[in-house]
Structure formats: C-alpha cells, structure tokens
C-alpha cells in the first residue's frame, strides 16, 4: 500500500487554453509512491488535461508539477521518466508488437540484449509473449490494450499515466481487465495515475480517488471515504445514488445531529464542519442505508422497481420529501412491498451525511 513518499505533486495548477477555456483551476494534489491513484469525474472536467500536463504534452498556465520533489512542469515529454497508456492505444502501425514495446528503450539508447530481455519480460507480464512478431492491426482491441500497456512499462517509468484505457473495450473484457491492471500495478510497483469517468472502475481499482468537476478537485480520499463520506452535493450525486434532504439543524450532540425538514421529519446525521443549531443544511442519504419495515418514520410506496438482486422503491414521507430506497430481495426473490403500501422506515444514526454546500 501507499508509502508516505510523494511521487507526483501538483501545486496550484491552472490551465487556460487559447480561446479562454479554463480546463484546470488551481488544482493541488499529491500522489504517493506505488499508489493506484484515480482521477474521476464527468466528461470535460479536466482529467485528461491534468494527465497531459504530467506527461508533458501540455504546459501549465500557472503552478508547478513535482516529480519526486523536482519541478518537471516545463520539461519536454522525452525528459520525464513518466509513460502514458493512450486512450486509443496509439500503437505504431508500421512496427511489430516487439518493436513497439522496445521503442522506449531503443530511444534511450539501451543495448540490444537488454532491450530484447525487457521486451520479452513486458510481453510475458501482459500474457502476449507469442505475439511479438505481429503487427498491431492483426490484434484484437483487448490485445492492443495489453501491448500498449507493455510498451509503457517496458522502460520502467517512475509513474504510469492511463487515460481511460479500458473505455474502448466491451463490458466483459473491461471487467476482466480491471483485476488484471490492479494485479500488474501491484507486481510492478509503479505508481499509477488512472483517469476514468466510470465510478465503478474507480471504486474497485483505486487506492485513492480524486473526484473532479469543472476543473477543480472536489474530494480526495480512499474509495470507502468517497462513498461513505462525500463532502458535497456533487460528490454525493456523482458517486453512487443519493437522496438529498434539506432542513435545519435541530440539535447537536457531539458528532451526531438531528436535522429537521420544514414539515417536521427528523433525520439523524453525522456532523461535518463547524455548524451550529439552526443552520440550514443539506444531507445526503444512500438508498441502501434506509431500513424498511420498522422505525419511527412512516411513508407510502409510490414506485417499486425490480432490479434482480434488489428492489428499488420510491417512498413519500409527508408532502415534501420523497426518498429512493433500495432493499436486497429475500430468498424467494420477491419484493416485500407493493405500490400503495404504507411502510415504516428507519434511518440509522450515521447513515445520513451533512454536505458542505
């Protein structure tokens, strides 16, 4: 797991493109050595731009990028011990697989014997040992992906950058590759910076995630922290599903507070930030954390949608609040409630989380 040492550190990075698009706005983030770090956010939020700044394909408008403490923000890509796995692989079509994989070492001027050994090793690592003589055009998408990966790790970079490397694969292959990439990262010990807009990918593979939106980092944390303790509306909404409930803080007792909605529904929530009683606040509540069948609250089932392993309900509490609730189906596989039923429900202490905005 993550050692304390920082591999890449971005300090106050801004990037304004000619034409005035501000792709990154004062971004600071520290990526630790040997870490699987993910930049997660919707399309257009600046993930690729941040990656390209680290690779050296773009230069920042402001701020610095440190690699093991040295500022590399203005070095060309060939002077940075950082390699990239491109979204569409960018394999050289006029070279064989082995020539592709050996390209980096060849450009570094390494002796031929060493290059051949490293190529064999890298191809074996991605289970493509028998494909060295082929051309990229003779490979399937998944195989090209493996070659792109082998080519990027063959020169043993200090940091590997991956820009949505799985997005061009079909679903089954994508899911299989997640596990493989994670294993490869552990085996090579290289720091990975992985870009994706797919929250499931981010949650399953990462040591830590930076959630981005509109050129800014919204939250950095382990998958569990991001999912369980989203700091703001955007993160709670983008990662998984959330109910958002607005109200005012009624009472505070240590870390626990009670938030009351305008029509008097009381919800226990964890404190987050310096608030006092009376403050208007929004809380986020995950659908699967709400318990049905018992509790102080009462609601009416408006919708019930069968999802296979679970059932998703929309339940109205009074006039102003509707909650989406998810409950695992029992052994018979049937949903416990039907549209029109009145159900009791319980929001356990700690299930609801106060948001900063």
């Amino acid at each position, binding site marked *: 797991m993550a050692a304390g040492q920082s591999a890449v550190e971005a300090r106050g990075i801004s990037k304004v493109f*000619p034409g005035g698009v501000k792709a990154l706005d004062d971004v600071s983030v520290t990526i630790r050595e040997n870490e699987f770090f993910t930049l997660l956010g919707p399309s257009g939020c600046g993930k690729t731009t941040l990656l390209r700044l680290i*690779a*050296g*394909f773009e230069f920042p408008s402001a701020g610095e990028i440190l690699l093991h403490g040295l500022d590399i923000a203005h070095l*060309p*890509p*060939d002077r940075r011990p*950082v*390699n*990239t796995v*491109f979204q*569409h692989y*960018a*394999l*050289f*079509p*006029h070279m064989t697989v082995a020539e592709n994989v050996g*390209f*980096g070492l060849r*450009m*570094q001027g390494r002796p031929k014997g060493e290059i051949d050994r490293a190529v064999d090793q890298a191809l074996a690592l991605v289970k493509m040992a028998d494909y060295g003589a082929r051309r990229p*055009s003779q490979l399937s998408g998944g195989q090209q992906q493996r070659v792109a990966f082998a*080519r*990027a790790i063959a*020169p043993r970079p200090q940091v590997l950058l991956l820009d949505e490397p799985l997005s061009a694969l079909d679903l089954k292959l994508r899911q299989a590759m997640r596990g493989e990439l994670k294993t490869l990262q552990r085996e090579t010990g290289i720091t990975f910076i992985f870009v994706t807009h797919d929250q499931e990918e981010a949650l399953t593979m990462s040591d830590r995630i930076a959630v981005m939106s509109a050129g800014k980092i919204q939250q950095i944390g382990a998958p569990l922290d991001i999912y369980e303790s989203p700091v703001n509306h955007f993160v709670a909404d983008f990662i998984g599903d959330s109910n958002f409930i607005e109200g005012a803080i009624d009472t505070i007792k240590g870390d626990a507070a009670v938030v009351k909605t305008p029509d008097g529904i009381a919800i226990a929530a964890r404190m987050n930030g310096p608030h006092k009683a009376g403050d208007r606040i929004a809380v986020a509540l995950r659908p699967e954390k709400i318990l049905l069948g018992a509790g102080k609250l009462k609601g009416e089932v408006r919708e019930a949608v069968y999802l296979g392993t679970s059932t998703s309900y929309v339940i109205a509490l009074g006039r102003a609040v509707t909650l989406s609730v998810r409950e695992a189906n029992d052994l018979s596989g049937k949903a416990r409630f039907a549209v029109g039923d009145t159900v009791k429900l319980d929001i356990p202490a700690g299930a609801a989380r106060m948001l900063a905005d």
Partner: protein
Amino acid sequence: MRQPVGHYPGLRLWTALFFFFLYAPMVVLVAYSFNVNKLAMIWGGFSTRWYVKLFTTGGIGEAAMNSLLVAVIATCFAVAIAIAAALVLVREAGFRGAGLSNALISMPLIVPEIVTAVATLMFFVMLKNWIGFDLGLGNIIIAHCVFCIPFAFMPIRARLQDMDLALEQAARDLYADAWKAFRFVTLPLLMPGVVAGAMLAFVISLDDFIITQMISGPGTTTLPVYIYSMIRNGITPEVNAASTILIAVSTALVTVYWYVSRPKKT
C-alpha cells in the same frame, strides 16, 4: 421503363464523348509514331524506324538528360520543402498566418502559367543584370522546384492530416526527442504521401513547357522544349515518337502515384 434511382439518361453518351476527345488525338499520335511513311497522315505499315532515328540524331539525348536532371533535383527539393511546410501548417495550425500560408502555397495552381512564366523570366533577367546571377540549367531547376512544391505538398498534407497526433506524442512520451520522433514515426507513416507527392512533382516537372520555354537557352533545352522546336519543321514522325515516349513515362509515373496513394485496407 424501370431505371434505378440516380440514373440520368444521356449522361453516358456525354461521358463517352469526353473520353473520345481526350484520348483520340493521343491514340492517333502514338499510332503514327510507328508509321513507316514519312508523310505523317498516310499509314504505310508498322515500323520503329523513327525511334531509331530519334536516338541516333543528336539533341534529343541531351534534352532528355536535362529533363531528367531537372526533374530529379527539383523533385527532391520540392518534396523536402513540402514536408517542412506541411508539418508547420498542419501541426501548428494555431499560429498566426496559417490560413494565409495555406492559400499562398496553392496559389501557383491557380495563377495562369503564362503569367508565372513571364514573371519568372523577368526575375531571372533582373538577377542577371543586377548581380550577374545565371546558373543556366540551375535557373530551370529553381523555377521547376518552385512550381512543383504545391503538387508535392497536397498529398503530404492530406496524409499528415489523417495521421493521429497521439502517435507522435507516444513517440515523445517514449523518450524520442523531436527529431527522432520525426525520423522513426512521423516520416515512415508519411511515406505514402511523400512518394505520391514526389511522383506528381516529377511528372509536372518533366512535362512543363511554358515556363521552361521562357527561361531555357542553348544547352538548357528540355524534352518538351525540344519537341516544340522540332515541330517548326512540321509534324514529323520523330515528333510523334518523342511525344509517345513522354506519354509512356508520365503514364508509368502516374500509375505508380495512383498505386501508392490509394487507400489501403488494414
């Protein structure tokens, strides 16, 4: 009558007429270059005597050598300049004046050739009068190089525009400096465009008459200029033979151009 959508009656006839006017004169010319008879318009039987005569009388050999020399050197320079121009205009499309430069580089294709020819003549006369600059055949090479550039440029630019920028970035990412990325990735991938551009430039240079005629003098005669001078003595079978050779060379090169530049299935 049932006709597929997109069928327009009568167009086939027009097309046939077009092909007739395009190729009938050439067919006649080629046929008569193999005519035994001295009188060009009367068929007397097959013979290659005019080809023999063409190559045994002086002048044509020298003209052919000049043509070849001019075409080869002009093509090399034109291609090198065209590659540089394409790299700048396609890869750095953001720079000020890119649009203007793109327009300027294809101007020679639009300006009437006789205008270019007169301008070129004046240019060289001025150079000679002012600073005594006169390279003889070199002048022709310079002029050819200039009007060949747009022809070399077009297929190279097209190829470069189709090329994924990520490939060059991948090369830079893998420790190739700018020059090595060009040498090992950009240039090999650009090669079909370069070959196509070179073929076009070569044919254009080989076939040029108007500009060359203006600036050529004794000892710097090229093949088209030589053929024209032969016509002053009437259209002889030797003229037909020389023209046939030009047609053959041009056709061969255009065939290579077509073969190289056609889209490949991968």
